[in-house]
Structure formats: structure tokens, C-alpha cells
């Protein structure tokens, strides 16, 4: 099976999109907290709602981190693909086990799809980085 990943420069594009999303979310939450406004997950506090829909904004952020995760690393060959696939496997089943345990602890527990999506991609990126560090860079 041949896996097609995005070219390396997409890492920078994805990172810029995600940092913009993250930075704006932090500023937005800070302004809302500063003005003691009630929490509104669908609204934005600093006037951007006229130009940007919150859902579109979330989409850009998630797309950014997905693009980052799908882009090739600078150093890339079949061993890197193997490490990447193993990380995906571990994250996928790790998430399933976490959800099962969480449901056992409290049966009415729920998690939004966007949180799951973000948690999986961030876990994948961290795990891949850590495994590459221990298996390759530390030699």
C-alpha cells in the first residue's frame, strides 16, 4: 500500500492555520472572561462574528492541524512510514480504551466529536515525535 502524504511545506501552512485558530480562541476566551460574559461556545467576543462564523473558524483550526499531521517530515522513508502507522494504531486503540474506561466510570459521559478529533491528532503528533526521538534520534 502506497501512502500519499502532503509535501513538507504543508507543515508550515497547517501550523500557521492552527496557531491562528488557537491564538484567536485564547484571546477570545480572555476577552470574554475579562468582561465576565457567560460562556457561549458558538459566539466570539471581539466582533469577528460579523466576518467569520465560529464553526468555520473551528473548521480552519482543525483543518490546519490535520494538514500538519498529514504533511511529510523533512526526513521520510519506509521506516518513518512504519513509525507513523504504529503511532496511528496506538492512538486509535488508546482512544477507544480511554472511552471505554470513561464510560465505565460514568455511564452518562459524552465527548464531542471535535474534541475527540483534536485529541487524537495531538496525541498522534506527540506520540510520533516521542517515538522518533527514542527510536532514532537517541541512537
Amino acid at each position, binding site marked *: 500500500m502506497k501512502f500519499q502524504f502532503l509535501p513538507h511545506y504543508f507543515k508550515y501552512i497547517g501550523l500557521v492555520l492552527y496557531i491562528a485558530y488557537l491564538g484567536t480562541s485564547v484571546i477570545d476566551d480572555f476577552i470574554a472572561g475579562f468582561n465576565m460574559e457567560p460562556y457561549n461556545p458558538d459566539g466570539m467576543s471581539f466582533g469577528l462574528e460579523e466576518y467569520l462564523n465560529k464553526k468555520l473558524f473551528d473548521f480552519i483550526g482543525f483543518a490546519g492541524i490535520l494538514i500538519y499531521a498529514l504533511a511529510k517530515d523533512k526526513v521520510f522513508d*519506509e521506516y518513518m512510514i512504519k513509525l507513523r502507522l504504529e503511532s496511528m494504531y496506538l492512538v486509535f486503540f488508546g482512544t477507544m480504551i480511554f472511552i471505554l474506561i470513561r464510560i465505565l466510570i460514568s455511564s452518562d459521559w459524552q465527548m464531542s466529536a471535535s474534541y475527540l478529533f483534536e485529541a487524537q491528532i495531538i496525541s498522534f503528533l506527540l506520540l510520533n515525535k516521542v517515538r522518533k526521538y527514542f527510536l532514532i534520534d537517541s541512537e
Partner: protein
Amino acid sequence: MRNLIKVERARYNLTQTDLATNVGVTRQTIYAIEQGKFMPSILLAFKIASVLQIEISELFIMEDIDFNKL
């Protein structure tokens, strides 16, 4: 499965980086193969054997335990 890449490299006075450049992978991949941490694809194994001018069956040696795997 064990392999004689390190021995054959030494025969031709090649570094891991030289071999990696010749077969189009990273030095880390050659290191992982030599250490037995990674089993290369057939294509990569053939490329390595070709660069080291040795038969693939002489470079990668099956052991009895390998027959019981999978």
C-alpha cells in the same frame, strides 16, 4: 532474521550514510535494519543487496525461529 549489512559495509568501507544515500533512505533506517529493529521491504532489501553486490539470501539470513513467526 539477522543480516550481514554491517559486515558487508565494512568490506566496501561504506558508512551508514553512504549506503543510505546509495539506496535512497535515511541513515536512521539503515541503523534500524542493522540493529534488527526494522525489517525492510523486499524492494529496499534488493537495493541494499545490489549496492553491496551480494545475493539477498546471503545478506538476510533466516533463522529457525523465523519459520514459526506469523
